């Protein structure tokens, strides 16, 4: 058979399909549409983001076949994937690293679009769908972290719940909606699983579709040149003329650069995955893990950094309002200026803003990485109340010391040099705070301490405050008045049998050493 005959033979089935679906006629413009000749290496970031997204879907589907979305099995199933499935760990590593890479690539892509003013007329909606894609992807990253169902996951959820809790009026309902109940438990995982594998990916795929359609419709913007001004009334006509005259077909001219860049990204990704391995699952506590240091995943580190810098008084307002404002500003960007100059050199204010935002995020991430998070996640069940704080206490104070363990205060607070360093050591708290002040601190939290008001009943609160009021240096006189009643404006005492598991680890995870 000669060459032509072979080609003909190969073409036949293609033509058969084409005749019945028109799929080639439909998709050919995707490849052949003209893009500006000036579109060079600056334009590869969007494609790379898309590639990472595709990798996420492929690896995610594979993981979905093996992951057990139940509170009692999730952690175990990850270990199973890591250890029993051939290259299962690689799959998880790719999924994890590709998720971070996607967030980073997306940020770079957005930054490039912002700096080149590409969001201006007629591409406002490209930008807006992009903003929603960013939010969806961040939500995917957050829910994905929860899938690990380890200490980090609990930590993230605990803080998330604490933030949601602060919403005025609807705090309780929103917390219940987020966690599937008053505490982090099996329902929480189910909820986040549904979000992570159905709802959010569905939303992301839809948004990607819209984003791509808009790109096809509006074309890819040219490299900005100083003096080349966007005038909405004439822009589209002129752009299309220029494309017609000087544009080059997307494939292969622009596509080859995308492919090279994506190839490099892919190699880097495989390298990162192979070298650094999968993320977590972090401790199911075992004795060697007493000093685990749960942190949020990198995309959220800056938020936690910011939270740790906030003055406690303004915290609620800032934590609740700033994300709303941030999103509103991002969405508003193309409306604030949708015409005029695009060149960075003619938009110095905007460039300064971009640099500022990037620097702020980097600095806050650094703050998040270096700030003393270090809660000790099994401190509550592993670190005994030191002798000097047990001796000479009344039975009620002793129970207060147990509540201090039980409510996992110890995970964040040191006693006698052992315990979490998230909050201040409480060895001498009675010299700093009156019982009333302690009650307020415990009930309302603040300064990165969760509010326990609703998680401790009046007896637990009384006992814990009574116990803390005895914590003072040995040489100072004990000023607790025996039998003195504390004024306790307790809002909504829980039923006695409801254990506190609102933040940190619930008993089932924190006490997991023995199940290995």
């Amino acid at each position, binding site marked *: 058979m000669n060459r032509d005959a072979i080609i003909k033979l190969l073409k036949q089935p293609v033509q058969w399909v084409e005749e019945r679906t028109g799929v080639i006629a439909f998709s050919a413009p995707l490849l052949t549409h003209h893009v500006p000749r000036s579109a060079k290496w600056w334009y590869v970031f969007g494609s790379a983001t898309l590639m990472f997204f595709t990798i996420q879907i492929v690896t995610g589907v594979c993981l979905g076949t093996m992951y057990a979305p139940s509170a009692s099995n999730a952690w175990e199933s990850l270990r199973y994937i*890591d*250890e029993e499935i051939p290259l299962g*760990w*690689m799959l998880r*590593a790719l999924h994890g690293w590709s998720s971070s890479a996607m967030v980073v690539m997306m940020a770079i892509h957005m930054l490039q679009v912002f700096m080149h003013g590409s969001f201006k007329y007629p591409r406002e909606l490209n930008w807006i769908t992009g903003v929603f894609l960013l939010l969806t992807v961040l939500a995917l990253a957050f829910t994905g972290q929860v899938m690990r169902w380890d200490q980090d996951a609990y930590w993230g959820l605990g803080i998330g719940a604490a933030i949601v809790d602060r919403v005025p009026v609807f705090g309780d309902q929103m917390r219940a909606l987020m966690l599937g109940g008053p505490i982090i*438990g099996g329902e929480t995982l189910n909820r986040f699983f549904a979000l992570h594998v159905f709802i959010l990916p569905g939303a992301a795929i839809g948004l990607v579709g819209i984003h791509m359609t808009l790109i096809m419709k509006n074309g890819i913007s040219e490299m900005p040149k100083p003096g080349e001004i966007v005038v909405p009334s004439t822009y589209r006509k002129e752009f299309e003329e220029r494309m017609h005259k000087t544009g080059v077909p997307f494939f292969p001219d622009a596509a*080859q650069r995308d492919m*090279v860049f994506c*190839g490099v990204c892919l190699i880097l990704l495989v390298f990162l*995955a*192979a*070298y*650094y*391995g*999968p993320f977590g699952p972090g401790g199911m*506590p*075992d*004795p060697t893990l*007493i000093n685990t240091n749960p942190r949020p995943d990198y995309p959220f580190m800056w938020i936690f950094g910011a939270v740790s810098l906030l003055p406690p008084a303004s915290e609620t307002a800032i934590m609740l309002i700033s994300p709303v404002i941030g999103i509103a500003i991002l969405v508003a960007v193309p409306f604030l200026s949708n015409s005029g100059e695009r060149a960075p050199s003619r938009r110095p204010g905007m460039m300064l803003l971009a640099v500022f935002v990037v620097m702020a995020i980097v600095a806050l991430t650094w703050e998040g990485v270096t700030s003393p998070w270090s809660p000790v996640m*099994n401190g509550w*069940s*592993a*670190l*005994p*109340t*030191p*002798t000097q704080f*047990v*001796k000479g*206490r*009344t*039975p*009620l*104070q002793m*129970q207060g010391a*147990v*509540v*201090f*363990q*039980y409510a996992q205060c*110890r995970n964040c607070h040191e006693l006698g040099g052992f315990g979490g360093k998230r909050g201040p050591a409480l060895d001498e708290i009675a010299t700093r705070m009156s019982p009333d002040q302690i009650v307020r601190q415990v009930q309302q939290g603040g300064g990165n301490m969760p509010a326990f008001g609703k998680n401790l*009943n*009046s*007896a*637990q609160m009384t*006992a814990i405050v009574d116990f803390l009021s005895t914590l003072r240096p040995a040489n100072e006189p004990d000023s607790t008045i*025996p*039998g003195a009643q504390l004024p306790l404006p307790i809002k909504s005492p829980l039923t*006695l*049998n409801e*254990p506190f*598991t609102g933040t940190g680890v*619930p*008993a*089932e995870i924190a*006490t997991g*050493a*023995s*199940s*290995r």
Partner: protein
Amino acid sequence: MLRIPNFFSCLLIFASIGCDRMPGKPTVATPVAIGSSAWTQSTFDTNCRGCHSQGAEGAAIPLIDAGYWKVATDAQVIQVISHGQGVLMPSYLESNGGPMSAEQIAAFVKGMRSLWGAGSPGGQGGISDVVVAGNADAGAHVFASACASCHAAGGSAGSVTDPMYLKLISNQGLWSAIVYGRAALASPAWNEPMPNHPNGLTPTEVADVVSWIAQARPVSPANNQNASNAK
């Protein structure tokens, strides 16, 4: 443009290194044998020591204590670990939301006994380790004669009839506090001789005084709520 041959040779090198020796592969933790004393100790240190330690350390009843294991029976300890006790003792059995299987709990209790039980099989000392119902009126007299010297209002050891305290401790907890005491905190063990009670207290007397103390508890006894603990 990228040189295809180079790319492939890179890939080949990658493949030939062997995926199973890549640095990112998670290392498999070697499990400690269940039931070994190392396993028992580490399970205890991670899960229990925060509340139950030894001597004057830890706020709940010490478990590193031969006196405890002399009286306590394995069955009762397994029951408590599995289902919790009162308000503040979590339940550890898987079906109660805990991390341990029934077999692990049994092995754990056996392990603790062999570490700290000083060879005692438990159930010794003439008093049950499980709370029994008593007569509160008789208990008032027991309290006056045996306890008031330390626990009366303003007494050196603090009130045991404080309603807030009683909301946090179960009758079983009161029973154990009285039976075992806590020598390191100068809290007497009433299964042993005391100055004006040469034989300690009888089981009936302990039951009576627990009933009397429990009367001061404002809500239904917390020890009915074991099963719903630590979900």
